[in-house]
C-alpha cells in the first residue's frame, strides 16, 4: 500500500473519529447546561443528586464508562446493546456533559449580581435575563476552558476502539497487521491538523467576542 492508499484508508477511519467528536459535542453541549442548572438548583435533593452523578461520572475512567454502557445492559437486563457506535456516543456524551456542566457553572456564577438586577430593572423575565444578558457573557468567559475540553475530546475518541469501533487509530492498527507499521504514527498528523483547525477556530471566536473590552 502506497502513501496515498494509506491516507485514503485513514481518512475513512477519521470519518468515524469526526462523527464521534461532532455527535458528542452536539449532545453534550446542551446536556451540560441542563446539568449545570441542576447543580445550581435551590431545590436541595436535586442539587445533591446531580452533584453525585457528576462526581461518579468524573470519578470513573471514561474507558470504564464505555465498557459499562456497552456491556451492562446485556449482563443485567439480558438486552445486549446492538450498536457499538451508539454506546460510545452515549458514554462520551454523559462524560463530557458532566465536565462541561462544571465549566458552565463556573462561568454562570462568575457573572456579577448587578447584571441580573439591571435586567430586572428593565422589566425582563428571568429566562430573558439569562438568555439575553447573562449567556453571552458566560460564553465569552468559558471559551478558553471549553476549548481545552473540546481538544481533549478529539483525542479521547481514540478510546472508542476498546469496544472495536473502527476509528482512525484502529484502522492504523489494522494496517499494521498487514505488515505496514508507519501509518500508526502517521495518524498523529490527522489529530494535529484537526486540533490545529480547532485552535484557530477558538482563537477567532475569542477575538469576535472581545468587543466587550472596547
Amino acid at each position, binding site marked *: 500500500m502506497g502513501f496515498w492508499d494509506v491516507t485514503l484508508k485513514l481518512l475513512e477511519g477519521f470519518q468515524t473519529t469526526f462523527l464521534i467528536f461532532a455527535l458528542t459535542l452536539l449532545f453534550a453541549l446542551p446536556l451540560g447546561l441542563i446539568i449545570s442548572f441542576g447543580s445550581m*438548583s435551590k*431545590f436541595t435533593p436535586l442539587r445533591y443528586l446531580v452533584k453525585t452523578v457528576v462526581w461518579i461520572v468524573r470519578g470513573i475512567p471514561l474507558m470504564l464508562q464505555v465498557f459499562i454502557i456497552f*456491556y451492562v445492559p446485556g449482563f443485567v437486563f*439480558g*438486552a445486549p*446493546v*446492538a450498536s457499538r457506535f451508539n454506546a460510545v456516543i*452515549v458514554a462520551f456524551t454523559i462524560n463530557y456533559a458532566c465536565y462541561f456542566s462544571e465549566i458552565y457553572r463556573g462561568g454562570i456564577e462568575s457573572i456579577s449580581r448587578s447584571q441580573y438586577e439591571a435586567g430586572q430593572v428593565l422589566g425582563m423575565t428571568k429566562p430573558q435575563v439569562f438568555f439575553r444578558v447573562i449567556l453571552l457573557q458566560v460564553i465569552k468567559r468559558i471559551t478558553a476552558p471549553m476549548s481545552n475540553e473540546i481538544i481533549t475530546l478529539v483525542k479521547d475518541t481514540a478510546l472508542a476502539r476498546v469496544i472495536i469501533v473502527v476509528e482512525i487509530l484502529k484502522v492504523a492498527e489494522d494496517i499494521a*497487521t498487514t505488515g505496514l507499521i508507519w501509518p500508526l504514527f502517521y495518524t498523529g498528523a490527522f489529530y494535529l491538523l484537526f486540533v490545529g483547525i480547532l485552535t484557530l477556530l477558538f482563537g477567532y471566536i475569542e477575538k469576535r467576542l472581545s468587543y466587550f473590552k472596547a
Partner: protein
Amino acid sequence: MRKVAYLTLVCALLVSMVFAFTSCSNATSKAEKLICGVTKYDPMNYLDENGDWTGFDTEFARLVGEKLDMEVSFQEIDWNKKFIELEAGTITCIWNGFTANAVDSVTNRPRHEDVDFSYSYMLNQQCVVIKADRADEFKSAEDLLGKTAAAEKGSAGESFAKEAVGDDGKMIDSTSQINTFVEVKSGSVDLAVVDILLAQRMAASGDYTDLIIADITLDHEVYAIGFKKGSELTKKVNEAMMELYNDGTLETLAKKYGLENSLKLDTAPVN
C-alpha cells in the same frame, strides 16, 4: 416555578436517555441471529479487498447459518474480552480459530469451564516466531527459558509462552496475535508464540521478511466453536457441522485455504 422547570428538564433528560438506550438495544439477540465474535486472523477470518469478511471460519459459519436458517454476522472483538462479550450477549459465539484444549490466560481456567464447545474441527499448533538472524540461538525448547516473549493476551499462545520461558522469563502482552510480530521485529522481545497457521502466512511477508518460525515443536491443539454455557445452539451447530463434514463440503472449503491437512472433525468432548 423555577424548581418545577428544572425538575421537568431533568426528567425529560432522563427519559430521553432511557429512550436512547432502548433504541440502541432494540435487536435483543433474536434466536435467528448468529453473531460470531472474531479477530482478524488469516486464514480463518480476515477482510478481502472489498472490506468483506472472508476466510475458512467465515465461510464455514455462513454454511452453518444457511443450514440452520440463521442470519450470520461477524463482529470484531477484543480477544481479551471474548467471554465478557459472550456473557453480555453482544456476540453469540466465538468462532475464530478458537483453541479448545487450552487454559485461558485471562481466567487461568481450562476454557471448557467458561464456554460450551462444539465438536472440534481442526488441528493447530503453536509456534515460536523469532528474528531470522537469531536463528542459531533458538534450537530447542530449553533455549526459550529466561527469554522475553510476546503473545496475544488471552490466547492459547500466551499459556504456551508462559510455560516456555519459565519463571525467569518475561511476558509482554499484545492486543492481537499480529501485534506480536511488531514486538519481535522492533526487538522489544526475543520471541513471540502464535498459531502456526497464522505464522506461516505472516512471517517472511510484507514488513516481516526478517522473521522466521523457529524449529521448536510445541504441543498440538484443536479448534472448536465456543458458545455460552447451556446454549441450545451447540447441539444444532454440531449437527450442521457433521452434515457439512460428511458430504465433503468442509473438505472442499479447507482445500480452498490450504488447510486440508489440518481438517479433522472430532466428536469427543474437549477437555
